[in-house]
């Protein structure tokens, strides 16, 4: 990790990933620091390329977050439809915390998949490895999560009136 701003951006993405999975800043902070420590210990006797280390960090953060038992609860949309065509007003009107909460409540592995896509921090092949999914499964999970988040935001907007 040589480029300073790229490095900061990567770490920011790692923290945001933990924050989405946990929705608690204190837990997200602990999880990313523990994950960095764990990966440091594990890679200190071997040389890994940066891409693999980055994927491993996301994988460890996810493992630790899932072990914290803060799993999604929103049933995934039954069809893999992606963002509905009329979702833009709900997304635009929603706050950061509302979108994060909608994403947080989405079922795994869609939640992690969509979070990784939106954070744009790792390549598609790395996402497959992090989540243990084939490209077809990854695409389906991501699209279902998009539909589930849109549905949650729509419901929330309707409740607010």
């Amino acid at each position, binding site marked *: 990790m040589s480029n300073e701003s790229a490095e900061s951006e990567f770490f920011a993405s790692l923290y945001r990933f933990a924050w989405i999975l946990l929705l608690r800043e204190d837990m997200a902070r602990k999880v990313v620091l523990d994950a960095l420590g764990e990966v440091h210990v594990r890679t200190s006797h071997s040389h890994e390329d940066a891409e693999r280390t980055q994927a491993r960090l996301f994988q460890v953060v996810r493992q630790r977050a899932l072990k914290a038992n803060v799993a999604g609860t929103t049933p995934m949309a039954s069809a893999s439809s992606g963002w509905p065509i009329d979702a833009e007003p709900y997304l635009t009107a929603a706050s950061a915390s509302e979108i994060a909460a909608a994403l947080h409540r989405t079922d795994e592995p869609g939640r992690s998949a969509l979070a990784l896509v939106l954070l744009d921090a790792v390549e598609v092949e790395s996402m497959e490895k992090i989540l*243990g999914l084939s490209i077809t499964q990854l695409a389906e999970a991501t699209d279902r999560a998009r539909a589930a988040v849109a549905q949650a935001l729509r419901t929330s907007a309707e409740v607010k009136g």
Partner: protein
Amino acid sequence: MNFKNACAIVKCLGPGQLEDPDRLARAALKVASKSKEIGAAVENQKSLDTIAAEKIAVAVPDDLLSTMREIGEKLGEPAARSSATFRNPAFLVVALAFLAMVALVVWLTPSQLDGFPGVDEAVLLAEAGDVSQPSQFEALSATAGTLGDWFVMQGFDGFQVPSGFATHSVVGVRVFDFEGVKVAMAVVPENRSFFYVFPSLQLGIAPGESGSSRIVEYGPESAPRVLGISQFGDFCFMVTFEGDRRMMERFIRASEAR
């Protein structure tokens, strides 16, 4: 790259990748854009993903970011330190002598060591399986030795377990892709274990055909896990659960004695 795969890849591209695609993304976009419908869907995805991505880009506390960067810098240190040290001729002599000793030990007691080709890959596979969600498994009630047909129907040909493990009860099964290779996985209530079967060569995991199991401890200190792996023919059989080397040794001994 076929059209179906290209569409799947495109659905997994974030806003930045759609804006500035790498080689794989460019190829996928080229193939997928042959359909006007997909083209419109990609525009919708890009536009709405961008809105969502901008919203969730919350600020990271400064102190946390600097701490992360401090630890992050250490991630690259060992290699740099090693390359400088290796230039020292005195170190080379000592290192060669040490390597000769290690080679002797490896030759004398291979079965006592954790190391085998693909050990890191085996740990990565185990970690990928550890975070499986219950919804990813098909529930059933069977014994491990009777699952061959089920896995064949799921496209995995060659599922078998060492004879001592065949009578273990299984309550869930799945087939998943790991680095493009199909892996069969079963949930075993005893010790809350996972059983895995996968082709050895394709993943470069070769614990050796001696028949004995290699045992590797992994995972965080707070929740240590252990894997036991053995090779039979072209396949590997792996067991994982939360615990340590001694627990795995006991589990394997008890299973083999069944």
